[in-house]
């Protein structure tokens, strides 16, 4: 099983290189965005699908990762290596997630949703309060560090193309996706993931089987928070900014909808959801302008279509797009 995950990861790496090297700067930027959405959605789908906890606060946890990254990149004279900064941002978010998780472990269903909703509302308020330090409404600008020379040289040697900042970011993001997905796939196929599912399905029976409910819930929340933190760090790098307006409740809700669209508990579903989140608005807006709508009208079309797609998926494929696809393949094979 683990070997299969590693092989898939290797295959994915090849595809990522091929796609990123053959697409434009603009597409590279979109792929970078898809990467951080995918990481956050993967963490959320594990939490909600496997462990049954509903979080409306993952946008806020992304903010923690984003601000951590931004703060670590403020210094003008030399910063830590970027990978170290992203790892630290993840760890910081894990700590915040553990604190929230301990509180959340005692809550269920709507109460948990309420508590995490409070998180989503409260955390963007923190930079406003500590505006000297965290940049207030304008947020913190993120200086993207230079690409290490050895990496730029190596990339040129392999691909024959200059490694641009945006492509570098996209690589970083997709490296993150691959690592996170392998780790999460390992977890969900292990006894840890199995015990999380048991807690989701029947608390009393899970407890009698020796599972500490609180610990299992906190564990799932912490893993999920770590993903959100990494995603937030990557978002800050992509947007070159960490500002409260980027982490409103809407972000949390979008992530949740991506997870539902893709299919709860499915990592492939998280990827599908992230792709929809990234590409659908642009495709729809483009189609709208082609149909002769004004720019403003076309821009308003995207949320409408996104909503419609969500309604249709929930009605027609309750297991999400990934689940629906799997069912279709089964059906084709058996008939």
């Amino acid at each position: 099983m683990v070997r299969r995950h590693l092989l898939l990861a290797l295959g994915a790496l090849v595809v990522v290189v091929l796609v990123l090297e053959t697409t434009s700067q603009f597409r590279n930027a979109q792929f970078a965005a898809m990467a951080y959405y995918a990481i956050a959605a993967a963490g959320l789908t594990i939490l909600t699908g496997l462990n049954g906890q509903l979080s409306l606060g993952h946008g806020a946890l992304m903010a923690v990762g984003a601000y951590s990254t931004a703060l670590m990149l403020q210094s003008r004279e030399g910063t830590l290596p970027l990978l170290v900064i992203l790892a630290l941002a993840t760890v910081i978010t894990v700590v915040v997630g553990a604190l929230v998780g301990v509180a959340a472990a005692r809550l269920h269903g709507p109460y948990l949703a309420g508590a995490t909703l409070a998180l989503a509302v409260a955390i963007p308020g923190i930079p406003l309060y500590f505006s000297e330090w965290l940049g207030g409404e304008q947020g913190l600008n993120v200086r993207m560090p230079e690409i290490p020379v050895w990496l730029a040289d190596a990339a040129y040697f392999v691909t024959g193309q200059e490694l641009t900042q945006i492509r570098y970011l996209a690589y970083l993001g997709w490296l993150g996706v691959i690592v996170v997905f392998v780790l999460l796939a390992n977890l969900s196929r292990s006894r840890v993931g199995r015990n999380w599912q048991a807690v989701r399905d029947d608390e009393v029976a899970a407890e009698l089987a020796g599972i500490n409910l609180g610990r299992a819930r906190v564990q799932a929340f912490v893993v999920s928070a770590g993903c959100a933190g990494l995603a937030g760090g990557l978002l800050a790098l992509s947007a070159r900014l960490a500002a409260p307006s980027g982490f409103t409740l809407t972000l949390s809700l979008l992530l949740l909808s991506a997870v539902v669209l893709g299919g709860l508990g499915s990592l492939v579903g998280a990827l599908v959801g992230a792709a929809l989140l990234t590409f659908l608005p642009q495709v729809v807006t483009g189609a709208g302008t082609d149909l002769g709508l004004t720019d403003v009208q076309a821009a308003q079309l995207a949320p409408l279509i996104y909503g419609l797609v969500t309604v249709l998926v929930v009605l027609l494929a309750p297991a999400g797009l990934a689940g629906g696809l799997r069912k279709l393949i089964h059906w084709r094979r058996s008939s």
Partner: protein
Amino acid sequence: MAETFEMSGVSVNFGGLVALSDVSLSVAAGQVLGVIGPNGAGKTTLFNVACGFVRPDTGTLTWRGEELRKLRPHQLAGLGIARSLQELGLFDRMTVLDNVLVGADRHATTGFWPALLGLPRRAKDERALRDRAMAALEEFDIADVAARYPASLPYPVRKRVALARALVGEPDLLLLDEPASGLSSAEMAEIGELVRGLTDRMSVMLVEHHMDLVMSVCDDIVVLDFGKVIARGAPAEIQADPAVQAAYLGEDVVTGADSR
């Protein structure tokens, strides 16, 4: 005896309501103890105390000679105590095999980090658990449904899954909550045989409504009424006890039908 489970002087009050009052009992190694009594006699509360779901107001629990203080339900499995639930409590969105694997988790030797990183020793651990779970499924004759989901199976089969999940952890004490509910008389006889077959490996304490099953399976019986122990002894003694007959008031203690 080493593997003895004891409750002594256990009292539980819910508000002003006395659920259990000074209840004492003990289950010796290899013994089957039945707990019976009319509806509302406190049988379920007794089980919940034994599992740590309800903390007694007074009284102590002792297991293998050590007092269980502040017992919490998730510690039971580690102590070698398993409990089956009357409503089965199967994990509906997990396969039968995964259900049983959760029960076998007590024997897992690797934790979170090997699982996250997919280390080789995790795979070895997982294989051992899987073998154990498959063996339990074979024992209950349900290996052919290992990949199915519980909801798609008939009730008696689901019941076996629940039992397999409780037994795969190889407990030393099994608490059975109404093992015969919803089963036909033939299936009930099977359960009876199964319980008797467990006594060389573990002790069993069971709560049951079906008198014929209780009488044929148990070595010892404790009768509860209004939270108090009104009789205890071997099945024959219990059947002859006038206090028990009075408590059941007209119900035929020997063949008593399911009172639910």
